[in-house]
């Protein structure tokens, strides 16, 4: 048996992983989530702002990370929409423009009374600018030097939301969803830390440990990986039960089913691999 496992074709492991993720997804298995303190810090940062506050939504991710980050971005958007906040969308990733479109779709389809036909007065799409941290340096000091127009080519001086906005130090909150460089770390380095801009981030599992040391002094809160997204969705549903009936508001919660089975599979594989290793050592194969 161990001999068979030792020479197991890796494609069988791939198949197991596929089944571990696919079956719970098809079955729609979900589990109850209890929001952690860290997630509640993010929730409160958005929720405690007075209705109609100004929020910058920096969506720095691409389709490659959409599976992990779209639930967070959607949850941030819904939460801001419930609070009727004014939203400034921007991205440091060229592929992030479509990610912004997804969030604007949520505003228009789910909250038409607040946002439909209110472009420029309730939300604005600044789009992408090249330069990574160079863009952050400019938007925190002189926004219009980097963004003279929005994504549609409209002059920012002709848009009510941006007319009097000199830089994003004037906004009430910065929400960042990030898949890597440039992203959360750069926003803290060049934005939230030197200029004390209240900031919350949602980031990938890879980035989560890197961002931890900034909390709470330089960063208000963080949603870490898909688990953070699921807990945040649950926190919003707990506070605004009308979302309970919206399946789109549970994207992250639905993903926790496959997450459980796949984690168990991975732990089993690690343990099995170590059993084989110990057996090989006993056989003297590692001398």
């Amino acid at each position, binding site marked *: 048996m161990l001999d068979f496992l030792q020479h197991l074709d890796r494609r069988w492991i*791939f198949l197991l992983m596929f089944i571990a993720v696919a079956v719970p997804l098809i079955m729609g298995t979900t589990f109850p989530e209890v929001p952690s303190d860290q997630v509640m810090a993010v929730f409160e940062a958005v929720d405690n702002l007075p209705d109609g506050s100004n929020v910058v939504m920096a969506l720095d991710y691409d389709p490659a990370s959409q599976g992990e980050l779209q639930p967070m971005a959607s949850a941030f958007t819904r939460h801001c929409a419930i609070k009727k906040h004014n939203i400034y969308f921007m991205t440091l990733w060229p592929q992030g423009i479509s990610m912004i479109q997804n969030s604007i779709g949520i505003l228009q389809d789910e909250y038409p009374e607040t946002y439909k036909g209110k472009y420029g007065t309730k939300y604005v799409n600044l789009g992408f600018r090249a330069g990574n941290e*160079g863009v952050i*340096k400019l938007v925190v000091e002189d926004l219009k*030097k980097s963004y003279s127009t929005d994504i549609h*080519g409209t002059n920012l001086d002709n848009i009510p939301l941006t007319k009097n906005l000199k830089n994003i130090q004037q906004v009430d909150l910065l929400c960042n969803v990030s898949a890597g460089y440039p992203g959360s770390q750069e926003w803290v380095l060049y934005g939230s830390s030197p200029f004390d801009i209240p900031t919350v981030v949602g980031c990938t599992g890879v980035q989560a*440990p890197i961002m931890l040391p900034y909390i709470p002094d330089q960063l208000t809160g963080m949603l870490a*990986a898909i688990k953070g997204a699921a807990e945040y969705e649950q926190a919003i549903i707990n506070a605004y039960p009308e979302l309970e009936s919206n399946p789109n508001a549970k994207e992250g919660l639905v993903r926790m089913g496959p997450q459980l089975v796949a984690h*168990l*599979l991975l732990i089993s594989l690690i343990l099995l691999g170590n059993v084989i290793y110990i057996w090989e050592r006993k056989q003297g194969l590692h001398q």
Partner: protein
Amino acid sequence: MKRTVPLFISAITGFVLIGTAFIPKFVDWGNDAMAWFNLLAAFAFILGGGNLLKMQLQKISAQQPGWGYAAVTLIAFFVTLFVGLVKVGVHPNVKFPEFAWSGDYLQEDGAFWWLFEYIFTPLSATMFALLAFYISSAAFRAFRAKNTEATILLIIAVIILLGRTYASVWLTGWLPDEFILGDSGIKYSDFNLQNLSEVIMENFTTAGMRAIKIGIALGVASTSLKVLLGVDRSYLGSDQEV
């Protein structure tokens, strides 16, 4: 000319930007420098495209193995470039309909949007989705408890993997919500896997990452100074460059 001028350019730019933190007058100069920096970053995308073109053409002209795929790359590149720059299928901006090119280049139902939505998105997302399979195979073949350090790493990984899913409730949810040793402030339930994983993240992972961050910060500062003072000139390449 080849080496001295770049050294001056780099030192002046760098010290002006450092000066923005201390001298108010430098802030405007710094912002101008950042605006130029961002423009150069945009031109770097063009340079990247140009390099790709050069390499693929070399591959095709030398008929190297797989040159057919290089041709496919070039066709995809030119089609994307054309539909994006010409704004194929894009309606004008509603406020300025008489200006045919005033529409958003990534407008829904435009050809460029179609390429992004139905070709770029699935390809890039699936490329990264493959990693889930390879990480499972690597876990089976390479993640071995060979010594104390590897064993610690393995145990912590297992605790976090369990603690971040509902498995933590199944396995340790039964731990009672009662104090250990009277009024000690610590409960049995504090040892359930979810709490344990949070304690590990807050105390140990944060501590380790903080030390790494401090080390990196010192490294970045010293490297930056070496570059600005001209001690490190590796970015200038060799003297043999034509």
